[in-house]
């Protein structure tokens, strides 16, 4: 137990702080089931994009085209859902993303184009293609527009855990605990209630993909071959692994995940395709992949963090104000940690920032609304830049590989 706390104190301490801060009435939105439920919904597209990035980078291909593949997911998802219904939308979103994954793979694997160049091209191309298709596909609709689709019925039904969260007209244990307003117990109950009630089947499908991705990569011969290709393509080739094929599959799975993320956005959040809807989530997914150290559950943690901050800014300006003291506390812990490691300059910067946030917190009642919108990005940035874990990226990621060449 003590060892567990020691090892994970950088995750545990912030949670403890959040719960403590949430005890103040003004900040109780920090730990309600509503916040957590929204956080999960906001985290899922980012998590899916991050998983997509992981499949690509594990096979050695940098995929900054995730954003573009996600755009294809939104458009194809909306179009097929409009024509045939939401599940077809999901399928079409995956295929649309995978198609652009295929383009990226052809460029980077077969033609050895620089991965960044190809990825940027994908992003530009996707934006243009989506607009073109939108004009063509909805030309005879009364609501015709170059940037929007008609409204889509994205309802696939949802699921609430019976007895624990009150699904199917059963009593809700977590709901009861949350309403008791006991410190900690109610907060944790809020978290569990948010995570287990009113989840749409699409969300469940997406969440199930996380352990599935981990299982595929670490427990099957296919996953072993994929990982080896990103680490050591020449060696894998000499053991009979089809490196090109693995890279193709990896990048296409990557596109499929990004496409699913896009379709999810359309069907779950907005019910409509809108240009610019992805709003950089592909890139944030990439960031959560790095934060998650190229591992599925780490990616889930990273995207959960962003989703949580995003949910807070949507639900309550007050709660965002509570984050200031949280940031201050976390920076303070960091300062101490760096002091122990004798990194004096880093430590003093952390201390100064910590005091700055504390002063801001004490001298204000709310946070300016401009800052509120910016919260998720800022939180992600702070966590990313201070995440001191040892990142271990695939050894040969981003490097061109030619078959038959021994290095």
């Amino acid at each position, binding site marked *: 137990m003590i060892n567990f706390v020691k090892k994970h104190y950088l995750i545990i301490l912030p949670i403890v702080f959040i719960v403590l801060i949430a005890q103040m009435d003004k900040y109780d939105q920090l730990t309600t089931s509503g916040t957590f439920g929204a956080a999960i919904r906001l985290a899922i597209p980012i998590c899916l994009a991050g998983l997509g990035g992981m499949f690509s980078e594990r096979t050695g291909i940098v995929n900054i085209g995730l954003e573009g593949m996600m755009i294809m997911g939104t458009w194809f998802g909306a179009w097929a859902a409009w024509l045939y219904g939401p599940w077809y939308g999901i399928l079409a979103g995956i295929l649309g993303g995978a198609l652009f994954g295929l383009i990226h793979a052809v460029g980077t694997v077969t033609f050895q184009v620089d991965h960044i160049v190809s990825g940027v091209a994908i992003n530009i191309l996707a934006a243009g293609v989506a607009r073109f298709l939108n004009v063509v596909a909805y030309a005879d609709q009364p609501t015709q527009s170059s940037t929007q689709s008609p409204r889509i019925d994205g309802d696939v039904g949802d699921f609430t855990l019976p007895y624990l969260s009150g699904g199917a007209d059963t009593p809700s244990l977590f709901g009861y605990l949350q309403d008791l307003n006991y410190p900690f117990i109610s907060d944790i109950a809020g978290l569990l209630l948010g995570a287990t009630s009113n989840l749409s089947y699409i969300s469940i499908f997406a969440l199930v993909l996380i352990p599935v991705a981990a299982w*595929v990569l670490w*427990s*099957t*011969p*296919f996953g*072993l*071959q994929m*990982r*080896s290709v990103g*680490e*050591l393509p*020449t*060696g*894998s*080739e*000499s*053991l*009979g*692994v*089809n490196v090109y*094929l*693995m890279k193709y599959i990896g990048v296409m799975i990557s596109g499929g995940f990004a496409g699913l993320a896009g379709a999810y956005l359309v069907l779950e959040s907005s019910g409509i395709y809108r240009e610019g809807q992805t709003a950089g989530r592909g890139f944030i997914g990439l960031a959560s992949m790095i934060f998650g150290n190229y591992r599925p559950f780490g990616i889930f943690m990273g995207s959960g963090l962003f989703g949580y901050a995003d949910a807070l800014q949507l639900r309550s300006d007050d709660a965002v104000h509570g984050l200031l003291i949280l940031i201050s506390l976390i920076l303070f812990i960091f300062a101490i940690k760096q002091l122990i490691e004798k990194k004096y300059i880093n430590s003093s910067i952390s201390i100064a920032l910590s005091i700055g946030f504390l002063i801001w917190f004490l001298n204000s009642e709310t946070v300016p609304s401009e800052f509120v919108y910016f919260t998720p990005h800022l939180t992600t940035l702070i966590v990313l830049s201070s995440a001191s874990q040892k990142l*271990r990226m*695939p*050894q040969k990621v981003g490097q061109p590989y030619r078959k*038959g060449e*021994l*290095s």
Partner: protein
Amino acid sequence: MTLAIDLSNISKSFPGVKANDEINLKIQEGTIHAIVGENGAGKSTLMKILYGMLKQDFGSIKIFDNEVNFSSPKDAISEGIGMVHQHFMLADNLSVLESVILGMDRASLKVLNKSKYKDEINEITEKYSMPLNTQSMIDELGVGEKQRVEIIKVLFRGAKILILDEPTAVLVPQEVSELFNNLKNLKDSGVTIIFISHKLDEVLEIADEISVMRGGKHIDTVDASTVSKTDLAEMMIGQNLPTPPKREKNSKQDKALTIKNLTAETENGRSAFKNINFSINQGEVVGIAGVEGNGQRELAESILGVYPIESGEIILGETTINDLSTRDRRESGLSFIPEDRQSQGLLMDVSLSENVILGKQSSTKYKSRYSNIKFNEASKNSNIVIENFDVRTPGNNTLALALSGGNQQKFVVGREIENKPSLLIASQPTRGIDIGAQSLIWNKLRDARDDGLGVLLISADLDELIGLSDRIYVIYEGSFVKELDPENATPEILGSYMTGLKT
């Protein structure tokens, strides 16, 4: 006895080069067959053809009397051929178990049966007494263990024929003898081994038969028990085997470099090296022997000013250079031959005349009053280097990547020596190059020493260290454990200090 391998008339051309020219080679089952030759003699090409990585232009391959036609290593593996490459084909981020079983199964989505594989691997490690922990990650292993993983990987695939490409290049003498014991065990249980090397002593020790290649041709196959080293060398290069030039001490009293109590830590707080004390006189070569990763690289880089030190003093000539930047250190007379010429010594996509500027780009030698580069000067100096160091190139406009490894290295060494330093740090100055280039570099280093240059020589080639150095320090786990006179040093003695067997 059956023939394990029967190659007839194998030819392979690359644009402009005939890498293999009508090679005929027969190898008996259950023997150790060595293939020797200089770099570029065509050994690697032949082995890649045998392992299915390249396709021959002409000729046929018979394995155990079956004519085969390989299109990929997978085909070769299924015929019982396995190869251990010189540079290990291991991914740091995989476990031993994963590395061994990689590629065994088709890329399917069924569950990997790890416990079954683990038992099978342990069976092999016990049978050939090559202990290994299957759970370890590759980056936790030492060089010798990594090589063992490679061999087990091949045996696990049921290899009857084992190709070892320069297996001893990365090992210290004790590890070499361990490897040789393992190889003898393998031979006794019927495995055929092809041993590629250019170290003739080792080849004579381990091999039953030796084939010599030169310039893409198979010169001869001889019995190891009857052939002498000199004969082999003559077959290999058509002239006598070069040895490092004999020493005559010629050092002067003035110090070129003095190191006092130098200590440094690695990034994760471990000690990189501690309390290093030594000095180099002008006209003296001081060698540092050590197994890779014992602090010698960090030591060289800290003298150069690239690696941060904790405490201690670095004195170049008479002045303390602790606080100088790397650029200032180079300008006050320090030169450096890096261990990896391609990533640290040269810009591969740039011409030789521009490459000669590297390291002196900010000195007035190549910088005009208006901060322009003096390209004429660079062109002139690159021609001097090319001429003095016999760099084989069409001209100084040739890109560095067009040169062979030996010529690249000659150019790097030439550039650093022609800069007329007072101290030269030479890190692996002849690694992986052919005998001709090696002997030229040795001679040039010796000439420079005779002219009063102080040299710090770091090398994994123990013969080179013994041959060139005036004094040798052995570094082990970051400390100098022994100072040796090369007159009395042998590779075995050095090796036992390098591995901590003796202190």
